[in-house]
């Protein structure tokens, strides 16, 4: 047993981090916010070109031929960078929806626990649905996740639920780890009462708990990626949702008044975390799935 990342996996993660830092840094993120959340098709194609969507397709089919553990590492980086768009749905559609693997098509999914769909206006297809449904645009809490209300949400995503939940957990984990970094950096720079606020235990303890949450979620995520066990996936989604949401809130708290502004990125992490917590598997659904598995295992 060696749970640690292989060298190839570490290289993959570092490569994706570099790619995203160069192509979707802070300026690009703020430009997306200013543009009202419209998808950058050029960036989508570049992600496709880099193998983002075809990662798990077999090599003979034009894919990269890697597995869930590698996909999770890549999506963790996307979550860290707050990369917008229906990344999970398009990844899941690779190999079935033409253009998804290459990033020339944008594919969304009916993955929310209600009659809302993300990125419908930009979508070329909806996962598992023969034609694009019509919907009314609504104002979205997350400025980078446009939402439409559709008539019947349907259950087209059942077959993709576990993989969708796992990859979404990876996005959440990346966000949770990123907000730890943002909080720690701010706590080291910001001075009050003649010293960095990170020297105060009240702030220190907030940051320490953020790391604990993120590390527990990350471990659950990696294990679920290796085993693909539905109960472990449900656990990973539950813990990652909580880590992303609560870490963003604590990060906001560490930033004080600055954290409550539109200019600070903290609210973007929090609002996206809220969206993802409603996708593929909610906390209540995950807890019920885990309870059912616990009872089965206990018999």
């Amino acid at each position, binding site marked *: 047993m060696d749970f640690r990342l292989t060298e190839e996996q570490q290289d993959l993660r570092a490569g994706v981090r570099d790619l995203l830092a160069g192509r979707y840094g802070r300026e690009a993120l703020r430009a997306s916010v200013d543009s009202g959340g419209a998808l950058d098709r050029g960036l989508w194609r570049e992600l496709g070109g880099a193998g983002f969507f075809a990662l798990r397709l077999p090599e003979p089919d034009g894919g990269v031929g890697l597995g869930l553990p590698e996909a999770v590492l890549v999506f963790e980086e996307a979550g860290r960078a707050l990369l917008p768009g229906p990344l999970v749905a398009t990844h899941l559609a690779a190999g079935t929806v033409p253009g998804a693997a290459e990033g020339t098509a944008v594919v969304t999914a009916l993955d929310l626990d209600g009659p809302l769909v993300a990125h419908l206006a930009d979508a070329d297809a909806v996962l598992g649905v023969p034609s694009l449904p019509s919907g009314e645009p609504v104002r979205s809490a997350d400025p980078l996740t446009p939402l439409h209300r559709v008539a019947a949400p349907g259950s087209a995503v059942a077959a993709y639920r576990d993989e969708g939940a796992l990859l979404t957990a990876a996005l959440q984990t990346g966000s949770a780890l990123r907000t730890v970094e943002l909080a720690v950096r701010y706590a080291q720079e910001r001075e009050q009462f003649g*010293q960095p606020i990170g*020297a105060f235990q009240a702030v220190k*303890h907030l940051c*320490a708990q953020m790391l604990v949450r993120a590390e527990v979620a990350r471990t659950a995520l990696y294990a679920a990626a290796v085993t693909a066990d539905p109960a472990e996936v449900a656990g990973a989604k539950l*813990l990652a949702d909580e880590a992303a949401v609560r870490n963003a809130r604590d990060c906001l708290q560490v930033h004080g008044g600055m954290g409550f502004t539109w200019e600070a990125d903290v609210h973007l992490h929090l609002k996206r975390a809220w969206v993802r917590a409603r996708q593929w598997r909610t906390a209540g659904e995950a*807890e019920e799935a885990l309870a059912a598995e616990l*009872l089965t295992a*206990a018999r």
Partner: protein
Amino acid sequence: MDLTYTEEEQDFRARLRVWLGKTLPELPAKPSPDDWPGRRAYDAGWQRRLYDAGYAGLHWPVDAGGRGATPTQHLIFLEETERAGAPYVGANFVGLLHAGPTIAAEGTAAQRARWLPPVLRGDEVWCQGFSEPGAGSDLASLRTRAVRDGDDYVITGSKIWTSHAEVADWCELLVRTDPISEAVPKHRGISWLAMPMDAPGVTVRPLRTLAGSTEFAEMFLDEVRVPVANRVGAENDGWRVTMVTLSFERGTAFVGEVVACRRTLGELARTAKANGRWDDPVLRRRLGRLYGEFGALWRLTQWNVSESERTGGVPGIGGSVFKLAYSHARQELYDTAAEVLGADSLVLDEEWVLDRLSSLSYTIAAGTSQIQQNIVAERILGLPKGR
């Protein structure tokens, strides 16, 4: 990311299972929790069986009398013994997990030869004389004085929270050999001594915990003479020696407990199903969440063990992250158990009720959660020291 075990590790597990299946039915009945001499004898009997079968000090270095097992083999050992319902390390805890590894790492050849074999055989029990009434979390402020007199130290002071002191033969004792002063930082000037518990001047007074047990004791030291030869490490270097000890404590100390908590969770689910409380969605979801959390904690254990294989078996500060998450989850587990039991959670005979009470110590013992948060914030996240 590889969670599969090698063929060698699987063989090790299989042989251990066979041995446990054969040995556990031979054990005598468990003594009552308050029968300390009985508990000591029971724990010694189990340790002797481990010794004879070659499982004693499994993860200790070979030149210290151990088996030199890898951290993964040690993990398997702890997992399998717990799963099979084998006895806990019990009274041998300090000897096997604190004092022994410290002597193995820092002791002279003569010290290793004197103290390690009896620990491995279960013949001698150790206790830990670290904390004092005025020096708990601020351990470096300890005041128990040791003054050199010829070939002896003469020791005066008092210790508290000394587990198993009533039945211990030896105490790993921290004493101040150089007084606190402007010139000397308080964590310097401390020495690590092996003190015989039957030395004249040692008085042990049991402390009753909120769980009603007398696991702990106060210890009073009145001009106790301990040979200088019993000092492990250099004079005034005891703080560094102690950090070696504590890093072991925070490593794999909770492996068996995580396995036990997962089993307890299964028992709770069965009980809740039988008494109808499973139909309460709030309680059911709470149990589901705990199942997810303890699953993650088990994986975190495997992660830390994988990390420690790289560092040659010395556990890192990842142990603080684990302890923070685990101590909280353990308390939540037993609070949830009380919800499953309902009014029966007020009946002290119930094993879960005693476990609920003892779980209250987990956020205090071995470094409070607040101290652990400081460690994580300062040593992992790099936040400045302060107050």
